[in-house]
């Protein structure tokens, strides 16, 4: 029953998307805008189909209907309810279902928002693009990634989710957050294609979709931080970011998306960089598809990768299509659509944003290069090599410094032109903050040129951001915290916290493995004391067995364990982390073949600042999405180079 309804819904969705795309294409080519009204119905059909498919799978999971192969392979009767729900996106076919459902959601919102303007070719092209993408994902589920396959002899019970995914409730939310980000970029991409095709780049459409981009970007940021947090808490090696190909796949669209968020402000103010922004958006979307390909095709080995299936070539093909269409459109139309303005001076906010774009583009290039380099080398001379942390860390460190520097400068730079005097006045307090940060960090034990320089630059950047916020709140009260610039400053503060945490935890990490024979033995590391207090065994409600090691850390007991999942036939480590604002102590049990207990202890400073910074980024994004008082969303602001009646942002002199 589930299989029938589910597959039927998927087919319906595909048919609806196909119909909608076809109707939209015909409407555009034959110049009959009235036909677009039918497309709204098709969208409704698609959304209905997606909801039914999603609900059907959840129903199958929650009722433990093992006649559905996906449930038989990934479900289990005793899995806690939250994880059962999350099993929908815990494996490959289900993840495509989640992607499609979210895409249908975005399609619905876009159609609703523009429901009175469907006879505008821009909207028509955008809807066409989105429907084609939706059609592709439904198509994947019709064929190689079908979650609704009948199981001939349903088993009595299944193995359940990968134990690593069941360690923490937060992990259940990581994919939906991430997908809200990835999939969200489809909307600005659709409008970018529309703008390139119709040639209407100067009317503020991209500015309008800026809000969509920011929304998607916010979720992507939060999803990435959540993933890092899970990796840290669950894997127990003390790290939170391994430059793993799947992690990089999520990071690449974030980098180009961040570049876009900044350069679109230049387009709003000065009407410039129109085609560059369109290219950035298309690149961001293409990178989300590339990332999906890398994680689902088995081309690059990764511990996060989904199981291999046949969808790799299809995703690569889709990526190729996107690349061809985008490059073709930009090559054909780009020069005719370029803006005519120019910038007065590199020492201006526009200049800082341009530099920001160059640096982020370079950053994305470095990450992409490192990720695919093993493939390139293998294609060139057949050698198998690996590229890991050593490469990425060394390359991204200077980039990080430059970005901190730009974050310090940009908020104090006015638009158009700045004088040295102006900068000198505005940067005094941020400079003081930077020096204070360096001194304080050294008093607290920091050493080494690179980390201290990082702390100093972070201090200056934080000073600039805080200065802007303080001035804005003094002028406008609580409204000084919302809106694009102020929300952006809060996001900057979050990023700065993350940068500081990254520098501190990487530079000052201490690790040791302690062997304990008898309770009462103790050891020290980095100012903490560890006393072995014995062992324990706890059997949980869902059947997992925790073999715990009791360690008293600075007076309180922690219970890292080796957890056996008998139903999945696996044993994984369950580390314990004691976090504080100063440092994190992480304990994990190393399996041994004899009776000696081996505990690996990792002490890192400032790890909690990562999660605080991530939360600030999310909060800042939400603040930035609050509409300002002044601007109408569709006011044409990307006017030619002559200054128009756009109200300049009040700049304190």
């Amino acid at each position, binding site marked *: 029953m589930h299989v029938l309804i589910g597959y039927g819904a998927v087919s319906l969705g595909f048919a609806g998307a196909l119909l909608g795309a076809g109707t939209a294409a015909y409407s555009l080519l034959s110049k009959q805008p009235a036909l677009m009204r039918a497309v709204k119905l098709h969208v409704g059909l698609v959304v209905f189909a997606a909801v039914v498919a999603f609900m059907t799978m959840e129903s199958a999971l929650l009722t433990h209907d093992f006649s559905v192969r996906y449930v038989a392979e990934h479900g289990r009767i005793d899995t806690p309810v939250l994880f059962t729900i999350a099993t929908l996106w815990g494996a490959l076919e289900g993840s495509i279902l989640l992607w499609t459902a979210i895409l249908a959601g975005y399609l619905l919102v876009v159609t609703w928002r523009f429901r009175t303007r469907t006879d505008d070719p821009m909207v028509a092209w955008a809807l066409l693009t989105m429907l084609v993408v939706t059609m592709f994902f439904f198509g994947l589920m019709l064929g190689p990634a079908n979650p609704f396959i009948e199981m001939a002899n349903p088993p009595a019970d299944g193995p359940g989710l990968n134990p690593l995914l069941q360690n923490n409730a937060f992990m259940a939310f990581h994919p939906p957050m991430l997908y809200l980000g990835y999939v969200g970029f489809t909307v600005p991409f659709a409008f970018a294609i529309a703008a390139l095709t119709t040639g209407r780049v100067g009317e503020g459409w991209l500015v309008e979709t800026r809000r969509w981009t920011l929304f998607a970007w916010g979720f992507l940021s939060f999803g990435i931080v959540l993933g890092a947090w899970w990796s840290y808490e669950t894997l127990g*090696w003390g790290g939170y970011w391994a430059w793993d190909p799947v992690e990089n796949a999520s990071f690449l669209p974030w980098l180009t998306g961040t570049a876009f968020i900044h350069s679109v402000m230049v387009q709003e103010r000065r009407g410039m960089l129109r085609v560059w922004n369109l290219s950035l958006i298309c690149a961001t979307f293409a990178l989300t598809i590339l990332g999906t390909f890398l994680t689902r095709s088995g081309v690059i080995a990764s511990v996060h990768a989904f199981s291999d299936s046949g969808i790799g070539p299809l995703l690569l093909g889709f990526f190729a299509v996107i690349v061809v269409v985008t490059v073709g459109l930009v090559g054909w139309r780009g020069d005719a659509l370029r803006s005519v303005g120019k910038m007065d001076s590199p020492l201006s906010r526009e200049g800082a944003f341009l530099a920001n774009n160059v640096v982020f583009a370079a950053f994305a290039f470095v990450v992409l290069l490192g990720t695919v380099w093993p493939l390139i080398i293998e294609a060139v001379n057949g050698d198998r090599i690996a590229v890991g942390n*050593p490469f990425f860390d060394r390359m991204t460190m200077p980039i990080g410094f430059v970005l901190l520097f730009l974050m310090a400068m940009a908020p104090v730079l006015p638009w158009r032109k700045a004088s040295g005097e102006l900068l000198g006045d505005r940067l005094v307090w941020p400079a003081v903050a930077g020096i204070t940060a360096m001194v304080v960090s050294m008093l607290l034990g920091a050493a080494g040129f690179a980390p201290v320089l990082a702390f100093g630059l972070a201090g200056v950047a934080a000073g600039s951001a805080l200065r802007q916020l303080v001035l804005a709140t003094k002028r406008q009260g609580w409204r000084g915290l919302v809106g694009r610039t102020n929300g952006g400053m809060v996001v900057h503060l979050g990023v700065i916290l993350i940068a500081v945490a990254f520098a501190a935890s990487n530079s000052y990490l201490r690790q040791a493995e302690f062997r304990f024979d008898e309770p009462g033995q103790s050891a020290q590391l980095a100012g903490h004391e560890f006393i072995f207090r014995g062992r324990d065994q706890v059997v949980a409600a869902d059947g997992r067995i925790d073999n715990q090691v009791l360690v008293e850390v600075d007076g309180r007991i922690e219970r890292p364990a080796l957890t056996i999942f008998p139903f999945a036939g696996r044993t994984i480590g369950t580390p314990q982390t004691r976090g504080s604002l100063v440092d994190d102590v992480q304990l*994990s049990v190393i399996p041994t073949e004899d009776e000696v207990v081996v505990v690996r202890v990792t002490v890192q400073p400032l790890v909690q600042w990562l999660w605080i910074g991530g939360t600030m980024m999310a909060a800042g994004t939400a603040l930035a999405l609050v509409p300002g008082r002044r601007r109408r969303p569709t006011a044409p602001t990307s006017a030619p180079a002559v200054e128009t009646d756009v109200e300049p942002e009040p700049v304190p002199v």
Partner: protein
Amino acid sequence: MFSRRSLVWLCLLAAALSALAVSTQLEGPPRTNEDRVRSLSEDFACPTCDGQSVAESNAVVAEEIRREIRRQVDEGQTDRQITDALVASYDESIDLRPRSGGVVGLIWIVPVVVMVFGFGALASVFRRWRLTEAQSASAEDVELVRSLREDRPT
């Protein structure tokens, strides 16, 4: 004479530079053998795990390799010797640091080249803008613009 602002900045600069100079002289806690084991472990890939380093992985072979690294560090072997031994046993691909020579070494150079190219392009774009700014408007141009603006619907 120096303005007050310049004086302030001179002091700030001096303070910043001295702080940085001090930072190079400070030493953190002494580097123990365990620290060396950890940093070496990050440079080698675990042979059976997809792409994880020996430091990250919980696999049995990763733990064994860490133990072996610890044994060699305690014996006093240098980083170079430990690396050579592991590469001799496993293969070049266990080393996560791309070699510096040959095609593989390009990976270190390409990003630098791209960055230089990017900033160079930016600089030339700015120069082009500045050069075109050098033209000033003639009286006819001003009159033309004024009359066109009058005609423009608001």
